[in-house]
């Protein structure tokens, strides 16, 4: 096995993959991306900068010159570290500090990976004395379908992230197939259309919206309004003709459709996230700087109750978030309505890899301490 590893280590690709030069190149590109992205953000907004520089594998300069994005660089850096640990850094006692430090950096990158792919950010708006067990995404959308019912109802929701024209979605419980005809990440809606060819399409919409027009992505992701046009087929028993619906993210009414004497409501709305606990806002307090309307601090006294758990009171303030399992509730904002009702706005962040950066920092710290101690021991030995 050792010989095989040695053979592999002499391979050109592996050598390059484990080389320090590659690390330096990656770090230089990363620094460039950070500076470039920061400058770009000033003009194009945070979301555009994030998408172009930090959430991409590569992007095009002037529309044709490819340049690596942060995701690609981080991935190469990760492989580089893995290769370095396996093939370049000798597995010796005196190298332990070095190896542990590298391991710590790998854990940090893995944490970043989990945060990038699995973390979910949403917000929860509560009026005093109101209870909720559901938060709402700030920028992701869902196509929600439910049967006409009062009180509690089952919602069938399709996340529209990754949905595109031509996609087909099966909702077996409702015997429905949705065929996406058009999907817009950002669009505007129009009702006063004189073009008869559009009007004849007779797309169903509760507010009378007749057409959607694509818009470029807004500078801030939260300013985008999604839109979708899709056909609904009943799959059991199969029916034709189908119905074509048009839904707009800012539409004020859900669109009702009756299929086989069953009334269903369709709505394109911000993605709802069911929380593992219910939160009641007991009191909201805001204090202002003297003689100004600038808030000095604000806090929410909430009562939380997990399923089967005990009710307890917690105060969430600007620097004191509530942590519950892999969820963190931050005091994000507030709203006072014209009738004086106070609302709190909490940012809810779900992150499986939340503890990985702490773990990695401990590893890196330990690794560096061991490394310096070993160096000290070696130099003292040499001086003797």
């Amino acid at each position: 096995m050792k010989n095989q590893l040695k053979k592999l280590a002499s391979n050109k690709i592996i050598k390059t993959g484990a080389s320090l030069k590659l690390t330096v190149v990656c770090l230089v590109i990363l620094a460039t991306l950070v500076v470039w992205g920061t400058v770009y953000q000033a003009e194009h907004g945070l979301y555009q900068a994030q998408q172009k520089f930090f959430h991409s594998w590569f992007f095009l300069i002037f529309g044709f010159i490819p340049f690596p994005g942060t995701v690609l660089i981080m991935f190469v850096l990760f492989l580089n570290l893995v290769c370095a640990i396996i093939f370049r850094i000798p597995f010796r006692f005196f190298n332990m500090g070095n190896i542990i430090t590298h391991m710590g950096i790998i854990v940090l990158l893995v944490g970043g990976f989990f945060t990038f792919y699995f973390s979910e950010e949403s917000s929860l708006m509560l009026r005093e004395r109101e209870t909720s067990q559901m938060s709402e995404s700030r920028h992701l959308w869902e196509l929600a379908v439910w049967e006409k019912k009062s009180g509690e109802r089952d919602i069938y929701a399709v996340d529209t992230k990754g949905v595109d024209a031509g996609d087909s979605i099966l909702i077996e419980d409702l015997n429905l197939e949705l065929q996406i005809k058009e999907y817009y990440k950002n669009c505007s809606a129009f009702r006063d259309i004189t073009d008869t060819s559009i009007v004849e399409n007779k797309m169903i919409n509760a507010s009378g919206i007749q057409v959607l027009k694509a818009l470029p992505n807004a500078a801030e992701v939260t300013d985008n309004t999604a839109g979708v046009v899709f056909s609904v087929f009943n799959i059991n028993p199969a029916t034709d003709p189908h119905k074509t619906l048009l839904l707009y993210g800012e539409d004020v009414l859900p669109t009702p459709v009756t299929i086989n004497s069953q009334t269903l409501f369709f709505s394109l709305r911000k993605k709802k996230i069911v929380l593992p606990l219910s939160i009641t806002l007991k009191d909201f307090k805001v204090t202002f700087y003297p003689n100004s309307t600038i808030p000095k601090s604000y806090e929410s006294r909430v009562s939380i109750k997990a399923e089967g758990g005990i009710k307890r009171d917690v105060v969430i303030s600007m620097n004191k978030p509530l942590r519950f399992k892999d969820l963190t509730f931050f005091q994000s904002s507030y709203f006072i309505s014209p009738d004086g009702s106070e609302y709190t706005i909490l940012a809810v962040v779900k992150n499986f890899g939340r503890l990985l950066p702490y773990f990695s920092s401990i590893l890196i710290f330990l690794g560096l301490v061991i490394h310096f101690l070993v160096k000290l021991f070696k130099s003292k030995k040499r001086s003797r």
Partner: protein
Amino acid sequence: MKMKLKVKKWTTYIPLLSALLLMVLISCSEGSKVRKYREKAAPVKKEAALPGPTATPGHTHFQWDKPDGWNEVPKTRGIRLAAFTIKSQNRESICTIIPLKGEAGGLKANVIRWLGQINVKMEPGSNKLDKFLASGEKFLTKGGFPTVLMDLTSVTPNPKDRSILAAVITIDGNSVFIKMIGEKSHLIKNKEKFKALCQSFSLKSEM
């Protein structure tokens, strides 16, 4: 002194390589699976106007019965679903049907606003306002939507003063406002018709 670790089996790298493989698989996967969850028909608090530069009644999928003698305005501008004019004895009132997102500020805030529009002052939190809010007539429309009808003529002093009849229909957490503005005496005369219009609000059945 060089201390070499003797054991460096290939199995040492299994966790590292499997983590790498898992990361590649996850980053390549995509899915728009159907999620199922349960929710209460809770009101949405955000208020927003209808999109688009102009609007027509279009083929909205709600229906209502137009009261006799009321004239539907053929082309409604703005965010209205429909508008009617009611004329009799040289007096004219206007009735509009407007959909709004969520609670649209809530009943209390809207009642305060409407009272302001007819120059009647009631302090928020006062008993007078609470009593007036409690006087709202509650009923279900033909489509089964909960409705509150607020009769502002009861707090309008003179028969010739401008007043308001307003109904708030709640449809799956969103609101439809039906509002009639005109002289107090004219509104009182048309109140039953207004109520009948609100009660007839339902989904179109042909879909």
